[in-house]
């Protein structure tokens, strides 16, 4: 992903037209990357032994050579690599991700069914880890060199060293098995009717452990980032000026140091979305949450390569979209960056 400073043109403040142009420009920028990923996924599928038809026949348990040839003909799989590639790209262009062998349905619909659960988890985990990271990192920067700073810095190191799935299992051992405060897994209590509000609370209760685990694994990053950014900004001229004008310390910290220091944190949210999605694979598996991550695990286990390829593409698309949204949010935080289109690159 490109950084903001070098790609964002300096345009004057602007209206809706500029906003739309910026969105289009940002999408155009993402197209080569998406195309490369699509090509990469094609070669990954080519690398695998057997094609989709073999997998399908193995899945339904029968089929003679004539039937297989027929299917290959229909899906354009029988010819050379070149024409297979053409078929693959044409199908992607109309958002056809192929058939899932494990689910006997088309990959797109399986993914769309699981996506909301993963999004819910990702958004909650990002909100939790970024907000706690900002507060703790900010505290460490304000008390830099002190015992609190040392504690937070060391805590970040230790958190970073722990595998997410292990942290999740420790949470289960402590809060679900020993204390029995929280459910062991799943997204809602089966066979229960709590009414509309009750079911929302039920889902929230099921999400506490997985979201906290996912957030904890990324907390360290935001703490370190915020701490570093605060220290950088603290050394800048305008902070000195604000202090010299006699502004209250609280004001200086929140407005003059805190706000600009948030910028790298916001950028990192976009850059980390892929890592977070990767992390949710193991977390969803640990907590049996029917999301995209658990789906990837099922695809691997059932050797459903079409589904796995679809998840790779969908995951990449998700990361690209998150980054575009983050870029838009960036303009709100930083008055120096105004949305404008075009001339960069």
């Amino acid at each position, binding site marked *: 992903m490109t950084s903001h400073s070098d790609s964002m043109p300096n345009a004057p403040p602007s209206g809706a037209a500029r906003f739309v142009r910026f969105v289009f420009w940002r999408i155009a920028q993402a197209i080569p990357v998406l195309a490369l990923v699509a090509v990469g996924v094609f070669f*990954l599928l080519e690398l695998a032994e057997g094609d989709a038809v073999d997998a399908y026949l193995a899945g339904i348990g029968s089929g003679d050579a004539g039937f297989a040839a027929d299917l290959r003909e229909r899906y354009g799989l029988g010819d050379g690599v070149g024409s297979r590639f053409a078929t693959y790209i044409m199908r992607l262009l109309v958002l056809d991700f192929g058939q899932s062998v494990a689910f006997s349905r088309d990959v797109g619909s399986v993914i769309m069914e699981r996506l909301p659960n993963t999004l819910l988890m990702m958004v909650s985990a990002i909100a939790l880890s970024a907000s706690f990271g900002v507060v703790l990192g900010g505290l460490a920067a304000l008390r830099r060199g002190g015992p609190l700073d040392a504690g937070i810095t060391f805590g970040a190191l230790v958190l970073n060293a*722990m595998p997410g*799935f292990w942290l999740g299992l420790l949470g289960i051992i402590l809060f679900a098995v020993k204390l029995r405060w929280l459910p062991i897994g799943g997204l809602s209590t089966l066979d229960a009717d709590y009414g509309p509000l009750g079911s929302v609370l039920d889902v929230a209760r099921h999400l506490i452990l997985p979201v906290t685990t996912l957030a904890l694994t990324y907390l360290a990053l935001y703490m370190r980032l915020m701490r570093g950014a605060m220290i950088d900004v603290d050394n800048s001229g305008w902070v000195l000026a604000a202090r010299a004008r006699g502004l209250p310390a609280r004001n200086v910290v929140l407005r003059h140091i805190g706000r600009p220091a948030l910028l790298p944190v916001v950028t990192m949210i976009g850059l980390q979305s892929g890592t977070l999605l990767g992390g949710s694979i*193991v977390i969803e598996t640990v907590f049996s949450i029917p999301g995209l991550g658990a789906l990837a695990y099922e695809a691997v*286990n059932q050797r459903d390569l079409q589904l796995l390829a679809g998840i790779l593409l969908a995951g990449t698309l998700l990361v690209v979209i998150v980054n575009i949204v983050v870029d838009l949010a960036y303009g709100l935080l930083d008055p120096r960056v105004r949305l404008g289109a075009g001339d960069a690159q």
Partner: protein
Amino acid sequence: MIAALREFRGAGGVLGGLVLLVIALIAAAASWIAPGDPLNMVARPLTQPFADPRYLLGTDQLGRNVLAGLVHGARVSMSVGAAAAAAAICVGILVGTMAGFSGRRIDNGLMRITEAFQTVPTFLLALALVSVLGASALNVVVAIGISSWPPTARLVRAEVLRLKGADYVDAARLAGRGSLAIAFMEVLPGALQPVVALIGVTVGEAILVESALAFLGLSDPNLVSWGGMIANGRALLRTAPYLVVLPGLAIAIAVLCVTLAGDGLANRLGIVGRR
């Protein structure tokens, strides 16, 4: 106080390095410390830790010695982690040098590819690669290497771009040396120093990815790995939580020490690492 903190970090580096050395020695001497196949049943299933001095950390549901598993697992986790990180760093150095030293067109192309690799969720890519290539130790190394080279490539490229206008590069060019020789023998050595700051993080990350893959069942089934031990103990969270706690502790300690040692090394060399 800042000086004290710095001293603490220096001490952390030394301590991390020492513990890492111990882990490496244990891994190297695994078959001497715990002879025999760690996957063999040796005692009554589910012996609790510290109950039997011969099986200090207990046994799992199949009567396999947990301590022997941890010792042999160290060998797999550490060697796979180190090899994968080495692969990632080598690919990163190669791509970064070529991108930085070549013309604009090649640079643009390589950076687009780097961007594509950074956009695909890293763990998802590693998972897909291992499941396509097959679950062997070598394939895990290849998969982690392929999915985690971009940060190194970006760092090396930036350094090469900075250095390539230097006088000694011009001098080498005037002396009639070829571009490849200049790129890899004149420019690259100078660009390598900041990479040292990335070693610790990259190795730590590789160990974590390896353990997560093993946890999902994507590791060599004939070798013990820490992640695989955790997956195995998952079924018995209620009765034998130590089967999950102990291997995870081993992973966390190993990764922490790798990071501390890497940080310490970078500090010692005077490279400004992570803040």
